């Protein structure tokens, strides 16, 4: 379990990162390294140059963009987002999901942008980004590009990010009104990869009628899946039975596979149960707000 040889540069600025990424070669950015270093140890990744962005303070921030969105710098550590009052207040779904990301030792190093760039199919942060239709900004020598994370994740470790691009920030939309969120996950151990993860966010009107709903699943395919069937609940009261019936209709939208941990059928059943729980948790949370 030793990485192959590589060269290492601690970049002083984003311009230096972009210059290095523009050169030919197997160049990889390292931030926290909590996904990349295991891949390098197993030699599934063999970069020839590691570009460390740890010294670039401009990539570490959490800022509200009015009440529209929360902007999180790509190299912001997961632990800093987890402890952020802004995240708890405006992105409770992300706050809940972060508790499930790895464990304290990896959250102390792992970053928000790193988790998105690494695109593990069972990862929680990409799942939240897909649910909330977050956008990322990526910098290259050609300038900044905005990427919709809803169609960013193509498969394990495969994303819309180009080899010459460095993620700089993630912009998570903030919902207004009576908002509630829910996150549920099943894994072999508390800190292990998700077998299935489900998240949901809803908005209710003063009478408790659902006016907006977003739901997504992780671990049931090569990338997080935004499922549309539960959106049939918009315009209705979110009674437990109605939620369970709406969630039963997701089957055609997911394509889980067997692996060494569990079978596809298990994943289908757990996906339905967890998603119903997530929507019900979101409903109850929204009902508690006025």
């Amino acid at each position, binding site marked *: *379990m*030793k*990485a*192959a*040889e*590589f*060269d*290492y540069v*601690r970049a002083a600025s984003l311009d230096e990162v972009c210059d290095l990424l523009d050169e030919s070669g197997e160049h990889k950015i*390292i931030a926290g*390294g*909590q996904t990349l*270093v*295991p891949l*390098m*140890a*197993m030699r599934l990744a063999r970069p020839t140059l*590691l570009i*460390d962005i*740890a010294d670039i303070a401009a990539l570490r921030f959490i800022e509200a963009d009015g009440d529209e969105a929360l902007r999180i710098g790509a190299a912001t550590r997961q*632990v800093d987002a987890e402890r952020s009052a802004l995240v708890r207040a405006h992105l409770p779904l992300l706050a809940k999901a972060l508790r499930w990301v*790895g*464990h*304290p*030792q*990896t959250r*102390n*190093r792992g970053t928000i942008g790193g988790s998105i760039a690494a695109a593990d199919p069972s990862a929680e942060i990409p799942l939240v980004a897909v649910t909330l239709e977050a956008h990322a900004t990526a910098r290259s020598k050609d300038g900044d590009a905005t990427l919709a994370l809803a169609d960013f994740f193509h498969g394990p470790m495969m994303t819309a990010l180009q080899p010459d691009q460095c993620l700089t920030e993630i912009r998570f939309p903030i919902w207004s009104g009576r908002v509630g969120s829910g996150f549920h996950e099943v894994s072999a*151990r*508390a*800190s292990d990869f998700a077998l299935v993860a489900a998240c949901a966010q809803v908005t209710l009107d003063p009478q408790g009628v659902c006016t907006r709903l977003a739901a997504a699943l992780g671990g049931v395919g090569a990338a997080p899946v935004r499922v549309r069937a539960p959106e049939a609940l918009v315009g209705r009261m979110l009674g437990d039975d109605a939620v369970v019936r709406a969630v039963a209709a997701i089957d055609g939208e997911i394509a889980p596979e067997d692996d060494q941990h569990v079978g596809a059928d298990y994943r289908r059943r757990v996906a339905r149960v967890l998603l119903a729980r997530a929507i019900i948790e979101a409903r109850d949370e929204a009902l508690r707000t006025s």
Partner: protein
Amino acid sequence: MKRTEITIAVNGRAYHRTVEPRTTLVDFLRDELRLTGTHAGCEHGVCGACSVLLDGEPVRSCLMFAVQADRRQVTTVEGLAPGAGELSILQDAFWETHAMQCGFCTPGMLIAGQALLNRTLDPTRDDIVEAIGGNLCRCTGYQQIIEAIELAARRLRAANAPAEPARP
């Protein structure tokens, strides 16, 4: 491949070395500095035996390269004891509650437990379970480790309690 000069403060002492970039922090600590208290287990971030404090926070030393720790402060299990031949309050509690058997996970458990106690002296059982959730132990079933951290927290709280008022 280009070797890189680094300076890392380990247990309060600065070490200047030239390393291959692919040297992990755990290999640097064990092979370069001969600080073999930190254990190399799975070497890909699963077992937690290699946990150290980086600028006071627990991290996996197998999941970072030594070059990434340049100009940072590292505390290993050797740095927890107050002096040579002595035990910290947490180490003593591990001894007393028999929170180890083979001892392979112990340095990582001590680092994870100490990191928690540095943040709070009043952890709940859930806090303790969460703090050691990334550390595997195949001997104890974890219960004595949880007890040890609870015992150390109790002792540290008592050590910090105000003195009894003097009797008239």
